[in-house]
């Protein structure tokens, strides 16, 4: 099953679903002949794309809307907030190449404030699958919901067999006494590696795949905070407004505090390049993450080994 097969299957079974794109067809290029007029390409017009999606939703459709995550959430932000958000319409936003996945494109294409922006819209739900399998597990529930949704599209092959998806629930991959890593999206793959490397050093390391950032699994965050372990938030997002902020909001609301190591992008865009080189340069490979966490624990980090090579992505946008 691929993203395209899932959307095709869903659209053929439910004629409310329309597929829209601002000429971003990377994941849906075979759909026009299948869906006919229910495939609507507005060209490079993110604002019109979202406005028209709102109009279609007003008439009972469920538009699944495709554009690069950065242009979708930034260029069309006011249209999403005002046309989709105020009216609370079931428009489903599929943001392509979010976070580090825009690898070689440069800062114009880096959607690393998308979680912050989208979760700031009342009623908007926000999802970030760890990989393609995780994404395919969550999309049926997202598309069936009456709420507007933003999904950080991630088609990377899974390196982990995920638990079934439950809306609003995080996936607890492992419990841990010394460290609990909290992450979402494509960096899940690297945190799995980091966890193994730290476990090999004798550390007890927990790992939580958030899956949904809004609604967020507060119970999972609170349990992690109450465990006394070092919490590490790992995200390909600016440090403001993403998971570190979400965690801080939840902890403060419950008058809790915790030792937290935030691993995110601080006040700058990342250096563009092939994905493996980006993760290496920015310190987000499994090995780098493990070393940064070991250092925070006051441990030596030099003998932490390298993880497997990062699988490069195969498309250009």
């Amino acid at each position, binding site marked *: 099953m691929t993203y395209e097969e899932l959307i095709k299957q869903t659209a053929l079974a439910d004629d409310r679903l329309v597929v829209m794109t601002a000429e971003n067809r990377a994941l849906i290029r075979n759909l026009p002949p299948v869906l006919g007029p229910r495939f609507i390409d*507005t*060209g490079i017009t993110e*604002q019109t794309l979202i406005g028209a999606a709102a*109009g*279609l939703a007003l008439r009972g*459709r469920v538009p699944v809307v495709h554009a690069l995550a950065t242009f979708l959430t930034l260029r069309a932000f006011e249209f999403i907030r*005002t046309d989709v958000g105020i009216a609370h319409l079931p428009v489903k936003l599929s943001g392509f190449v979010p976070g580090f996945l825009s690898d070689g494109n440069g800062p114009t294409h880096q959607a690393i404030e998308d979680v912050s922006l989208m979760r700031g819209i009342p009623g908007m739900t926000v999802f970030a699958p760890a990989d393609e399998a995780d994404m395919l597990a969550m999309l049926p529930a997202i598309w069936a919901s009456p709420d507007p949704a933003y999904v950080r599209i991630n088609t990377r092959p899974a390196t982990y067999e995920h638990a079934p998806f439950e809306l609003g629930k995080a996936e607890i991959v492992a419990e841990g006494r010394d460290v609990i890593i909290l992450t979402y999206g494509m960096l899940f793959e690297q945190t799995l590696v980091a966890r193994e490397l730290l476990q090999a050093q004798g550390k007890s390391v927990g790992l939580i795949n958030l899956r949904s950032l809004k609604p967020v699994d507060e119970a999972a965050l609170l349990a992690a905070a109450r465990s006394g372990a070092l919490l590490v938030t790992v995200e390909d997002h600016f440090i403001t407004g993403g998971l570190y902020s979400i965690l801080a909001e939840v902890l403060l609301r419950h008058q809790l505090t915790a030792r937290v190591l935030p691993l995110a992008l601080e006040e700058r865009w990342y250096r563009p390049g092939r994905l493996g080189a980006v993760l290496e340069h920015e310190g987000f490979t499994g090995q780098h993450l493990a070393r940064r966490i070991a250092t925070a624990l006051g441990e030596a980090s030099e003998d932490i080994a390298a993880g497997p090579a990062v699988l490069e992505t195969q498309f250009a946008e």
Partner: protein
Amino acid sequence: MTPEKRQNLEALALRVREHIVRLSTDGGCFTGASLSCADLLVYLYADYLNVRPDNLTDPGRDYLFLSKGHDVPALYGTFVELGLLDKDRLARHLSTDDHIYWHPNRHVPGVEFHSGSLGHLPSVALGVALDCRLRGQDNKIIVVTGDGELNEGSVWEALLVASAHRVNNLTLVVDRNQFQANVATEDLIPLEPLAPKFEAFGAVVRRIDGHDFDQLATAFSALPFSEDKPSVIICDTVRGRGLPSIEARADRWFCNFSAEEVEELLRELHSQEATSLTSETLTVR
């Protein structure tokens, strides 16, 4: 149009203008922008659109999207006169107990979509037009924009896309009252020649006097102007139309008159004799 029908529409428009004047106090409203499109909205709801109190949720109804949301007093006045809106709700203008404020919203039945941020509803209306076509329905989809609103690139973007998709059930109507917020359009961001701009974006255009019911009827009854293109009707209008004391003035976009001035302006509506206004001129956005 028979003389009797025209007189009925003119009488209706006069009553709508009275509502607009009455809303121009206790916090005020966008009086000038409302008066310029009062005749247009009266014509559309009273004579053209298949929109009635009993079909507001019928998917076969026609749609009017008020993209220049500032003129909502003209819309609500029309709704009251045609039985779509309870007159008592206008008395709750700017009260937090109701939803009657400076921009349209869907808490008022008959309002198809909220507006206030300019340049949004051409694309929303396009989505509705595409869906009506998908379902094989022949609803008419009208979107009313201001002329200042045409500064927004999203209007032109939506029109470009509508043309590309050969949408013929969408009509963009421009309330060409010659003013954007506080400045004459031609002094700030000149729009003329306007019709050729729309034509260049793939629409078929007609330009009429937006206060002349005969011209309105002739133009709208000829829709769609093409089988495979969107239509545009430019309505030349006068900001503040009906009140000579505020007509065509840059500083009478938003008005907040005293109770005495409102009474005088109501008389002016009927006599067409200018009132001498002393209330503070407001230029707000």
